[in-house]
């Protein structure tokens, strides 16, 4: 649904080099950030959402499927991970794997149910399914309702990496994020990703070329669900809690906003979008001052809505998309 800005002429190796360079720079910034006085908890939150947004972008940006229920994958993994780590006493890597697996399975089921629908139908059906999951988690005793699963132990990764140390936890999150990010890049630029894009651009044509469009879309959906789950699982370990926030439909809206703001169908867009939104959320809790007017934290939701409207009306390519377009214009 968004214009992709990869110029057709770009050779694959050059593109890969550019990507490697940009990823290396990003990794370096992430490695330095906590030492530059940026609060690590904020960074970890942003990274979890960045991975979530990247996973979502695989579906919407490259598959052309707008899911309005992706919170169910984030939240399901969070609950399963938190429960496994706290109640069953599993080590963090096993708990995270269990959470990710749960979301993957949920992705298979919901994907099989929805993948034949398109456009607006697809959005509304995923939304309704997510709402069903929300009520399930609200009422299921193991989630503890609005209290959530709290004080989840971080434990020791592989038995010897102590995650209770904030910096150790931080670098673990960075590694998970980068792994997920590079994996998604590889998926997008694999033959599979090319077929996916072809289906997005013209589904009947792709089908006539002999591709089973539904199967490709289903695989993309499940991959997206799995990585969203990974983000949710890690988030549960980082914040030591799993709560209804992550399965509520507003969360599904938020991830759409992150991707829209950063740039749909761009590689780095979702990361930028996630950081901007998480920063707004974190720092608007104290309110903002514009001239003589003081807007308290209660205006955060209105601001979120405004960003949505402005993005859709004037800024559809998102931050990274607009920058890319500007770059291409200047180059010639």
């Amino acid at each position: 649904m968004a214009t992709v800005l990869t110029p057709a002429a770009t050779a694959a190796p050059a593109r890969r080099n550019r990507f490697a360079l940009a990823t290396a720079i990003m990794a370096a910034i992430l490695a330095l950030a906590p030492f530059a006085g940026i609060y690590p908890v904020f960074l970890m939150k942003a990274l979890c959402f960045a991975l979530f947004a990247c996973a979502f972008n695989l579906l919407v940006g490259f598959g052309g499927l707008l899911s309005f229920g992706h919170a169910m994958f984030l939240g399901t993994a969070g609950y399963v991970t938190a429960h496994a780590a706290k109640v069953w006493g599993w080590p963090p890597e096993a708990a995270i794997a269990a959470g990710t697996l749960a979301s993957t399975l949920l992705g298979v089921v919901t994907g099989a149910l929805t993948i034949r629908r398109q456009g607006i139908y697809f959005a509304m059906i995923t939304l309704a399914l997510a709402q069903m999951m929300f009520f399930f988690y609200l009422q299921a005793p193991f989630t503890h309702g609005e209290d959530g699963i709290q004080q989840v132990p971080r434990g020791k990764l592989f038995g010897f990496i102590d995650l209770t140390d904030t910096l150790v936890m931080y670098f673990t999150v960075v590694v998970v994020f980068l792994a997920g990010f590079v994996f998604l890049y590889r998926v997008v630029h694999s033959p599979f990703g090319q077929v996916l894009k072809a289906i997005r651009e013209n589904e009947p044509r792709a089908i006539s070329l002999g591709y089973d469009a539904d199967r490709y879309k289903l695989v993309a959906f499940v991959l997206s669900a799995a990585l969203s789950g990974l983000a949710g699982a890690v988030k549960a370990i980082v914040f030591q809690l799993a709560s209804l926030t992550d399965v509520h439909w507003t969360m599904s809206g938020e991830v759409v906003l992150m991707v829209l703001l950063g740039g749909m169908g761009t590689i780095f867009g979702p990361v930028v979008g996630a950081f901007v939104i998480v920063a707004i959320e974190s720092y608007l809790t104290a309110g903002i001052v514009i001239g003589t007017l003081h807007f308290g934290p209660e205006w955060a939701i209105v601001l979120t809505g405004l960003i949505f409207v402005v993005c859709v009306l004037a800024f559809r390519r998102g931050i990274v998309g607009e920058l890319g377009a500007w770059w291409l214009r200047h180059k010639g």
Partner: protein
Amino acid sequence: MEIFGIPTQALFGQLLIGLINGAFYAMLSLGLAVIFGLLNIINFTHGAQYMMGAFCAWFLLERTGIGYWWALIIVPIVVGITGVVIERTMLARLYKLDHLYGLLLTFGLALIIQGVFTNAYGSSGQPYRLPQEFVGAYNLGFMFLPKYRAWVIVLSLVVCLGTWFVIERTKLGSYLRAATENPTLVQAFGVNVPRMITLTYGFGVGLAALAGVMAAPIYQVSPQMGANLIIVVFAVVVIGGMGSIMGAILTGFGLGVMEGLTKVFYAEASNTVIFVIMVIVLLVKPAGLFGRER
């Protein structure tokens, strides 16, 4: 006599109540269906516009003393005009794009409207007095039916069937339906299609606002009143299928009854039952009960 351990009389009462709730679903899904039919946009702002309708009625009563009856006429027009403004200034710029952008835009608008109302009027809401004419109840033998609830059924039936009649049985409606299929051709016949689209959106929004006015005396008038309802109504629309006006009406009432029955037999599931039905319907009939496969 009993059915599954529930006295028949009580069951009749519950069915009737379900029908009343269905009246609201029908009104709201009708508005969504009308808008979707012509604009191909899922109006996420619908819940917020329903809330605006209720607030607008409250505002008229509290600040100007204008009562319920006038509110039934004034509010849909006023809120409908805000809809026209939204359509002209924002939605109209999106028609050439993917329809999903319309969904995203209206989602953002819903957040803004609900946020502003919460900041202005607080979260616990405002009371709207039941109009004097409706105080009291009818004794139906099997239950006491508050007069106002009876009125809700009558009014929504009139509005729903009236809308269906206009769209399916009049010349204006035939233009509308034709414009859905082929706007360029209809334009060529000298019909101002953009204006028709604008008015249709305004009309759909007006329907939401009217439902809001009808809800004001029985539900607390609060900024969040539409936020959760809208998702249920989406499911209703999906179940009914997006192509059909009558489908939206019948599904609305029908699901109200289904939900009412769930409240009796297994109340815990009353919020999820509609979504479960949706999943089943999609498996059996992917385009919805009354829809056409696109």
